[in-house]
């Protein structure tokens, strides 16, 4: 659990973070979202003491972070950044083992951990272990960067716009991997982005920031359907918010009993947005719905989507 209480940071007379309070439960993937300059990266970097704060308190796992020596704290918290910051003069395996080496792990244990992480990111260990960062594609570098952040198995992982510099196709794949790894490891992840779609896709909790203050925090659906202020409404995208909320809701929430719909059925676990896309593509206003096992579960109509 990460508890941020009344934290403030003044930089050159400007309050870049202003009385910010936020609690991130264990196992959450909390996205700090906002326009550039809203203080989201500063907030992230205060959690591992890369930036000192002027007021308030931050606790990680119940412990006041100012009571822990900064280097010791940082070795317990994973850190991945946009430009990866991989050491260009070290091989992939040495890069990944950076924190384990600082912690004094044995060679064998480091080797095994590197293998395990490369497999987790679907990079063949024997092919990639000995490569240098410049021999990797942008997406592979980013995977190694995140693998390095996870190397010493930290309970908390901080990610600062990790996918902002890669192309949309690679970004989509990396987002899928982070979602998968989050589910598989149950880490508490704090993820900074300015991309609302990335936030909606990954987050279990979203905290939207506006000029150093917390504008709203909550689960994605709540942010999209009940924006707390004009700023949040604007950021979520007004009209486009309707589509975003369809993407967050499942067919099972709106389906009706009965049959009478023809064609390829859609799964109850699919999103309403997928249902809309299928209707549009097939020029129909109703789809049959099946459950996970493939048994008929009902019907969904165009009218149900806008209900």
């Amino acid at each position, binding site marked *: 659990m990460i508890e941020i209480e009344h934290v403030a940071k003044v930089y050159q007379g400007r309050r870049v973070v202003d009385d910010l309070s936020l609690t991130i439960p264990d196992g959450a993937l909390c996205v700090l979202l906002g326009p550039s300059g809203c203080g989201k990266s500063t907030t992230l*970097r205060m959690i*591992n003491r*890369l930036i000192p704060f002027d007021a308030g308190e931050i606790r990680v796992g119940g412990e006041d972070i100012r009571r822990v020596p*900064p*280097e*010791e*704290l*940082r*070795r317990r918290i994973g*850190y991945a*950044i*946009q*430009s*990866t*910051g*991989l*050491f*260009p*003069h*070290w*091989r992939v395996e*040495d890069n990944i083992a*950076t*924190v384990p*080496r*600082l912690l004094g792990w044995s060679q064998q244990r480091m080797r095994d951990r590197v293998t395990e992480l490369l497999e987790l990111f679907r990079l063949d260990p024997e092919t990639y272990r000995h490569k*240098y960062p410049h021999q990797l594609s942008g997406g592979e570098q980013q995977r190694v*960067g995140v693998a*390095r*952040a996870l190397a010493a198995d930290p309970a908390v992982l*901080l990610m600062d716009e990790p996918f902002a510099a890669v192309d949309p196709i690679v970004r989509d794949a990396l987002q899928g991997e982070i979602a998968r790894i989050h589910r598989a490891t149950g880490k508490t992840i704090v993820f900074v982005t300015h991309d609302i779609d990335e936030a909606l896709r990954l987050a279990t909790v979203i905290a939207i920031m506006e000029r150093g203050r917390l504008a709203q925090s909550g689960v994605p659906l709540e942010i999209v359907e009940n924006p707390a202020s004009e700023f949040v409404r604007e950021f979520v995208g007004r009209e486009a918010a309707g589509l975003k909320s369809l993407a967050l809701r499942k067919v099972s929430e709106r389906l009706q009993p009965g049959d009478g719909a023809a064609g390829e059925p859609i799964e109850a676990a699919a999103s309403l947005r997928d249902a809309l896309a299928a209707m549009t593509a097939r020029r129909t206003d109703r789809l049959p719905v099946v459950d996970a096992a493939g048994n008929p579960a009902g019907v969904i109509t165009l009218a149900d989507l806008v209900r």
Partner: protein
Amino acid sequence: MIGCGFVTLAPNRLVSGRPVTLWEAGGAALVVAIAALAALLLISVFVTAQRLVNWAAALIAAALLLTTLAAAGSAAAQLAAGTPALARVSLGAGFWVLFAVSALALIDAMQRVEIGGPAKLAVVAALAAACVGMAEAGAFDALSLALEYRNRRAEFAAALGRHALLVAAAIGPALLVGFPLGVAALRRPGLQSPVFAVLNLLQTIPSIALFGLLLAPLAALAAAAPLLAAFGIGGIGPAPAIIALITYALLPVVRSTVAAFGSVDAAVIDAGRGMGMTPRQLFWQAELPLAAPVLLAGLRIITVQAIGLAVVAALIGAGGLGTFVFQGLGQYAGDLILLGALPTIALALAADFLLQMLAATTSRRTRP
């Protein structure tokens, strides 16, 4: 090339000589050999560049270089045989042109064969060994340059050693002062412009003027502190020379330190800190190895610069190879000037070559 003098013949060491062609001095066989090698080299330029052709070109260029040297020695020996004892045979324009052309061809061919550092070192060492071997065998004994050397053999060794010592004594302190100064300028950007302003100003002072400026204070210091004078500190001699060399080396040291550490990716530093590396670990494991190639390039510059500048130090009695240069200038004896100048050039080239090799090995990837 054939028309102008390959060597010159003078009645004694102080007057200018008359040009003598290789044909006249060395005979037809040498001319034919050199012409054949030069023709082969010319042909190699027009053949499609392949690895084998490049190797052949390198070999021919090396052979041409050594043949040119041998021809100079042999021409001198034949000319000297029929002249009075005081007559001198010096290297002429034809020799220098041929020497320069074959050296350039060799360098060019070596670059195109793309051999590794150790192999390059071996080739250079082999060439140097061949030259030394020819000298030991007496191939150059009749040349005026060799006569000048024989007359000053003991002095020469001392001057060479003194020259190297002057350079080393300047570079050590320049690094000890300049490196921390550069690091400080990086940590505090406000410090950069005053530091560079002062160093730039020092750099613009001509070396002779700097010696003049140092003369009075150092003489006064030596007079006030006899202990310092006992260590050789004085208005003239090595002390002002070393101080001047340090002064000139400071700007390049500070500049390359700032450039080297400034070129390290900020994201690498951020990631290193964020993962819990201490400033010391970050410096030794990331910043220094990543900055090393630029730092070594800077070291190359100051070493070559100091070797050249140290020649001037002879003016104020600091010794070194410059002694011969200035003696030669005073006596109007060209070969004596060469006796100081050629080893200086060789020293600078050798230092440049070795540091380049060192830079190449450090820029290879390292492991933590």
